[in-house]
């Protein structure tokens, strides 16, 4: 996956369509939420929410200035395009770490699953319920996670590739 595609995926997840549109606009200078709202014809609250999400990601920053006439605080926003790869790297590394933790947990335990798909529980919990589902009373079956673990490991490799491709 190219880094442009990755950043789109990331922004869409965190700041939604509005965030993605703002980011794609590549505004040349600082702007206020109100200006952006007028330009896009989008509710100012949606613009603010998207901007603060971009801020939380580290892709936007603002400075506050009191408006001399109204006395209100104005937010002047700037998108940090130069941070794109840094943010992607941080998110990919975090995702990889979490995935590896998850893999470790899954590999360490044995799981049982209800034949009706109600619950997935550990061997110890399953034993306590006499291998019957605590919800529907049906039988609990051994759940072979080896295929999932393999697929998740492939995902780790894929993330490694993405990290390598980030310039």
């Amino acid at each position, binding site marked *: 996956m190219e880094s442009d595609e990755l950043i789109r995926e990331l922004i869409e997840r965190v700041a939604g369509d509005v965030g993605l549109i703002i980011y794609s606009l590549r505004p040349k200078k600082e702007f206020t939420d109100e200006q952006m709202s007028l330009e896009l014809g989008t509710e100012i609250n949606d613009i603010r929410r998207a901007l603060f999400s971009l801020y939380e990601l580290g892709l936007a920053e603002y400075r506050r200035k009191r408006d001399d006439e109204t006395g209100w605080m104005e937010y002047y926003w700037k998108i940090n395009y130069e941070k794109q790869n840094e943010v992607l790297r941080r998110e990919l590394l975090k995702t990889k770490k*979490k995935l590896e933790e998850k893999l470790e947990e899954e590999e360490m335990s044995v799981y049982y699953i209800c034949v009706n798909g109600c619950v*997935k529980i550990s061997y110890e919990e399953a034993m306590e319920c006499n291998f019957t589902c605590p919800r529907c009373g049906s039988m609990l079956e051994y759940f072979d996670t080896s295929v*999932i673990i393999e697929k998740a490991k492939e995902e780790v490799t894929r993330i490694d590739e993405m990290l390598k491709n980030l310039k």
Partner: protein
Amino acid sequence: MDTRGEILQILEQKGAILQKDLWKELKIDSSKCSRILRKLEKEELIRRIEVVVDGVKTFKIVPAGAEEEEEEELSLQAIMEKMESLVGLPPCFGCLEKDCVTGSCLRLEVWFLKKAKF
């Protein structure tokens, strides 16, 4: 009508409200609101359910007789169907949750289990 009555009326109309929205709507301070709610809960007129909204802990206020959260009632299969769009990179990519516990993340679990389908 006193504040207690107003709260119960709001709940009747809306079904549920966040504590942080309630005191603003009633135009009373948050500690007073919290005190009244605790009392109402003790009298079993309402229930307070702890929730996290935008990273801040608050309570969702529901009438005492309200059904349990739908989420808790769902089977694993139903949750997986509901999170249909959870594909691609794991949900951790772009997740802003601080101090999360990997083992108890439902979204990561669903993402993981979906791998079995393909």
